[in-house]
């Protein structure tokens, strides 16, 4: 790898990734632990989310307030959350401050106090979050779409299920911490104005002796797919469509990204042109590609008033199907410029880069340089993309609607 990128895997399985960005003053850190929602024990959904909140409520010899004050004094912009695979903790600030925060993050991960009062509050907030979801028909739709489309347990709502959260105990959460907050498979990525050697030394000092425990393999099932309607007295009907696609690790993955850019990216994309600009059917319409480790797909969304919902759904499906008839060289060229420009502009942001190298390493087992990605995009020719699209006709649609009336579904 070029001198911009560095990586090291410690004996306990923790991998340190670093992207050096000399012209910035800041740095961003992303710590991903193998403790995401898909690994929640059966009947205890939401456990990973409650745990990720709880560990921040006091760690090492600092109680919840002392810990928070300490991180704030460093001026850190903090983030935390739970995805399908990982519990994620991150921060960004002036580079030196991010380095200074490492001992506190080691406390959070390795020595959380996990007080009972903190657990009660964290679970209460999780339950309130689920309640709030019902007031947001668009989010309700996206949660349901992932549930039906992705293979269980990957489609789970990381927020959990109300029934199961109510029964969750501090003991459950503690035993999950013990088993899952460990070094094997963990990724710590830093991007910004940092030197690799001292960074590695610090990480070794605070995380190098973190225990390594056997990880539980997650067994997946076949996705449910199909059609689903949830009745809500909303102002708009919210429509979600999804279908399976190739993996991020497939040699053709740049091809699918470009194809979906033609379909749903940018304002000259087909969705925007046909559905919004020509017909005025909706304000918000998009399509995106998403990839798990062993499953990938295309997800699309539109929100539209109820009497125009059928026309919108029909139009979305027509555009998705038309994609297999190919794209024009002009469309491909715009999609390439769009993807490459995004890449370079994200390249100026330390937090975007830290997230990107961590994701890359998790999916591929290695970091890609910006140049590698650029040439991957450049290598896609009109013939290659059209040949790919012909071969991979979209099928097995999952369609979810949230709104006052059910729509007519395709055969």
């Amino acid at each position, binding site marked *: 790898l070029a001198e911009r990128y560095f990586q090291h895997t410690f004996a306990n399985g923790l991998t340190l990734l670093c992207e050096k960005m000399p012209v910035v003053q800041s740095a961003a850190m992303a710590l991903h632990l193998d403790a995401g929602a898909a690994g929640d024990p059966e009947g205890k959904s939401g456990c990973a989310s409650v745990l990720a909140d709880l560990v921040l409520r006091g760690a090492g010899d600092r109680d919840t307030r002392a810990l928070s004050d300490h991180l704030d004094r460093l001026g850190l912009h903090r983030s935390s959350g739970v995805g399908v695979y990982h519990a994620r903790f991150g921060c960004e600030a002036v580079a030196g401050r991010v380095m200074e925060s490492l001992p506190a993050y080691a406390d959070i991960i390795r020595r959380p106090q996990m007080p009972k009062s903190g657990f009660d509050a964290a679970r209460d907030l999780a339950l309130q979050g689920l309640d709030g979801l019902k007031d947001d028909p668009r989010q309700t739709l996206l949660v349901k779409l992932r549930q039906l489309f992705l293979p269980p347990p990957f489609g789970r709502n990381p927020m959990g299920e109300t029934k199961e959260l109510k029964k969750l105990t501090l003991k459950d959460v503690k035993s999950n911490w013990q088993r899952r907050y460990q070094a094997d498979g963990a990724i710590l990525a830093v991007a910004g104005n940092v030197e690799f050697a001292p960074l590695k030394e610090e990480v070794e000092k605070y995380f190098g002796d973190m225990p390594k425990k056997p990880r539980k393999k997650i067994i997946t099932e076949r996705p449910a797919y199909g059609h689903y309607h949830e009745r809500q007295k909303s102002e708009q009907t919210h429509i979600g469509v999804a279908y399976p696609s190739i993996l991020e690790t497939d040699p053709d993955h740049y091809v699918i990204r470009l194809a979906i850019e033609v379909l749903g990216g940018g304002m000259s994309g087909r969705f925007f042109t046909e559905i919004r600009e020509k017909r*005025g059917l909706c304000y918000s319409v998009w399509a995106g590609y998403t990839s798990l480790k062993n499953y990938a797909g295309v997800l699309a969304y539109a929100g539209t008033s109820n009497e125009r919902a059928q026309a919108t759904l029909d139009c979305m499906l027509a555009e998705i199907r038309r994609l297999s008839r190919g794209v024009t060289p002009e469309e491909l060229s715009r999609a390439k410029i769009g993807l490459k420009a995004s890449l370079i502009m994200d390249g100026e*942001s330390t937090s975007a880069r830290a997230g990107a190298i961590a994701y890359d390493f998790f999916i591929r087992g290695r970091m890609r340089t910006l140049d590698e990605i650029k040439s991957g995009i450049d290598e896609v020719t009109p013939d290659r993309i059209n040949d790919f699209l012909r071969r991979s006709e979209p099928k097995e649609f999952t369609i979810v609607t949230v709104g006052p009336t059910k729509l007519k579904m395709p055969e």
Partner: protein
Amino acid sequence: MRRDLALKFHHYRLANGLDVIAESDPDAHSFAAGLYVNTGSRDEPAEINGVSHFLEHMMFKGSKKYSWEDVNRIFDEIGARYNAFTTQENTAYYANVLPEFTRRVIEHLANLLRPAIRAQDFNTEKKVILEEIAMHGDDPGYRIYDAAMRQHFGKHPLGRSVLGSAKSIKALTRREMENYFRRHYGPDNMVLAAAGKLDFREIVALAEEHCGSWKASGAKRDHTVPSYTNKHKAMVDKKLNRQYTMAFTPGPSAQDDRRFAARVLGDVIGESEGSRFYWALVDNAIAEDADFGFYPHDGCGSFYVSLTTEPKRTSKALKIARTELERVKEDLTDEEVERAKNKIASAIVLEGELPMGRMRSMAGNWVYNKEYRSLEQDMETLLAVSPESLRELTRQFPFNPMTIVTLGPKAVKPD
């Protein structure tokens, strides 16, 4: 060399009054430009409320030279990350591109702002606007914000919704929009801002070439001082699960030097983590969300409180929030002010690393103050904010009286 020292500011005013401002950064990999127009929903006659935002959409529907397909295609051909927004006081159009597209992006933004407003496009886009209004109808966050602004500002134009209502949009004619455009989109009522890797001589030449022929319109804003209603209101919607609360109380304006202290005070009280509201309301789960902040306007300003709770906890949460607002006047500590300042300092550094962040910050300040502030000045001003200046601020703006609105399944009437 320190990055902030390598940044250089430039300003030039065209004969027609258009201000061109830029900050060049030789290390940047991209270029950002924006046209900020000093107009928004507060500048609209009440009958055509929503016209500023609708007009913002029409800009993307093409000029004499270009159709809407061309507009979208050209932006995508140069790989622009672009967007536009409308507030009560500003309408902005901006794009981030690679430096090789500087010429094309400025030409394109300039072209955008001389729209054709064709009948067919107007009618199609009207449907899109109505969809956007319907989408906001499904979002309690927007609903409570609009209702609380209306309640707080009463008949003052700042109380008007940015989107307008389905009724005002349906009734709006093309002619009314064209008249509004002529009055408010003169070059003397906007600024062209640029940041990142750039050559200022080139930017000025491009501005002359593409905006030099625009005619000044002499637009003036009505600066009538608002008389706040300070009344409380309970809105009931049985289909909601959560109770949403929003409150407004006066604060410094966008031109007021106390705005820097107001930002720090906002973070001390209402930042999402580690603030007074966090410890009093969110840490213990009394509220799912409790936010306090500073919202400056042209000539006046507001502090706001925003709460999301279970309906049965709303009264309690509101009481705690108001108690905290009283307490901070008495027992503010140096430590908490220092922490808030450190976080804002990080935000200034992070934003300063992105050309888009610099352009937006520069243009946003220019619209109100016609002055440039460097990263260094921003840092110095921040460091000079003292706990005493925050205390002084709470004496001058004592969070009282306050307008409070609640929305949810229960009629929660604050006392």
